[in-house]
């Protein structure tokens, strides 16, 4: 599976990419939303895992752009801040439904999630 990981904290993207690669995925680390959209257009990933609260383009806006670009791409948002739920529900009101995980994510759980079909997110 081709996966792009987006987070402004290098240690988080680096470790996640290491974990995903170890499980046989092709993972790419980027540090901001703009780069994520650019790389998504080039590598056409199967999944994108992105932080929500980031400087510049936030994770929800990034996810919306990628959804437009690659409708079949799996998008998982992860966040450590309560403020991000507002962003996510705003996106939902606009018709964008994303899976959301709270930081810290258990890596086993993330891997299991990626290997299973996306579950319906409750509205």
């Amino acid at each position: 599976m081709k996966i792009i990981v987006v987070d402004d904290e290098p240690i988080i993207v680096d470790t996640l990419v290491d974990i995903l690669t170890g499980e046989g995925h092709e993972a790419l680390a980027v540090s901001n939303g703009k780069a994520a959209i650019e790389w998504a257009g080039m590598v056409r990933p199967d999944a994108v895992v992105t932080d929500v609260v980031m400087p510049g383009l936030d994770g929800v806006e990034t996810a919306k752009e990628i959804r437009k670009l690659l409708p079949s791409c799996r998008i998982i948002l992860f966040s450590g801040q309560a403020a991000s739920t507002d962003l996510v529900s705003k996106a939902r009101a606009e018709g964008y439904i994303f899976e959301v995980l709270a930081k810290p994510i258990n890596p086993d759980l993330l891997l299991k999630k990626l290997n299973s079909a996306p579950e319906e997110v409750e509205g």
Partner: protein
Amino acid sequence: MTIKTPWIEADARTGGNEERLQAFVNASFDLVYRMSPDWSELRQIDGKGLVANAGRPLRNWMDEYLLPEDQPKVRAAIDRAIQSKSLFEMEHRIRRVDGSVGWTLSRAVPILDANGEIVEWFGAATDVTARKEAREAQRRLAAIVESSDDAIASKDLNGIVTSWNKSAERLFGYKPEEIIGKPILLIIPPELHKDEDMILGKIRRGEKIDHFETVRVAKNGERIDVSLTISPVRDERGNVVGAAKIVRNITENKKIEQALRTTEKLAAAGRLAATVAHEINNPLEAITNLVYLAKRDVANAAKVEKYLQLAGRELDRVAHIARQTLGFYRDTSAPTTLSITRTLDDLVFLYEKRLEARGIQLVKQYGEDIEIIALAGEIRQALSNLITNAIDAMPSGGKLVIRAAKSRSWRDSKRQGVRVTVLDTGSGISAQHLRRLYQPFFTTKTDVGTGLGLWITRNIIEKHGGTIRVKSRTRAASHGTAFWVFLPFEGKDSVADSGTQSDVPANTSISQRSR
């Protein structure tokens, strides 16, 4: 102006005194008139500039000089005087020569012949408009004072009460007769008696006291938070002879302020929780991943060591943040020794990520450790508000300068303390916003904040005997905002001359050393 002799012809009894009477008429300020026995004809009038002169006898004199609605009343008084052949005396309105309506006090005496019949009336009238208006103004003022919701009282320079209105009676429970003539100290709590010397001192120097917040005590012993405005009362020569004071009960305001403070504390705690969540969950995410990797690569000792090293660093970060923030809003009720520079360091550390994310360059200009005695949690909150405001003012980068240095008070150069400067290069605050900056609920940030931050900041600083100043520029070439805070080394001691003395709650003795 000379009046011809007809005045004299009329009076049979004045005989050879024509000149003396004429002189008297001329010398008088009063207008003088002669009336026919039944007042149907005004025979002569010298208006003295007050009313129009009449050169010839006037039959419709009432229409000429009186207002229509006043005529029946005046006529009735005249009829009574004619009937009793005695003095006519009445205060009534007249049309003045300039067209305006004034008040006059008019008196006329009947001149009787040998048979006791009225030959003529001889009268004089004085303009009493000014006196009447002054009296009315005084009555109006007295009515205002009496009906005011604020307690209004006056005292002489020895502090003896000279007047006492209804609201004063309601507020303090003393009836006017119980307190007029007694010392004002009756309503001043014993420990604040020295205030009265300060107040009287200022009044004697002719100074006014504006909104002095203090405590007074009612007859039943109840303590009342009040705001006093006291003005010197002067005699006509300008000498201060006493003081008039307006007392406003601000007990309710104080309660509301306390509630607002609590609200802001909760809101600040909420904002802090959001920041802490972000700052803690990120390192936790990293640690979780590193632990996973260490387990996965357990055979590779070099790799595991690297992961654990990184995890340790992230753990330090979590621990540091927890230590800083969990102590952050602890309600310290006793002042302690507090390092201003370390407090600033902790705050900067907490907001480091936010600064980085926005591309804000931080310039720290302080070296030596500066300690003050204060309520640590409150001072942290005050400084934190200034720093987060500065960060919020620079959404797309800029420079944040934080300075701390030993200094002296702007108000009193004998008071030593620390001056903290927080300066940003944001867009600045417009003059119209600057005026309302410290008002509760004033905010330009509609999405975050309660509009209480700076209000509470100033509250905290003033409670510690400090001062806060702001300067802001909004020009394109040079813009930004600077806040300066002065905090004395040791809370505040007696500051009788600053209006905020009673702001310090009785249970916090800030000047007390607790080392």
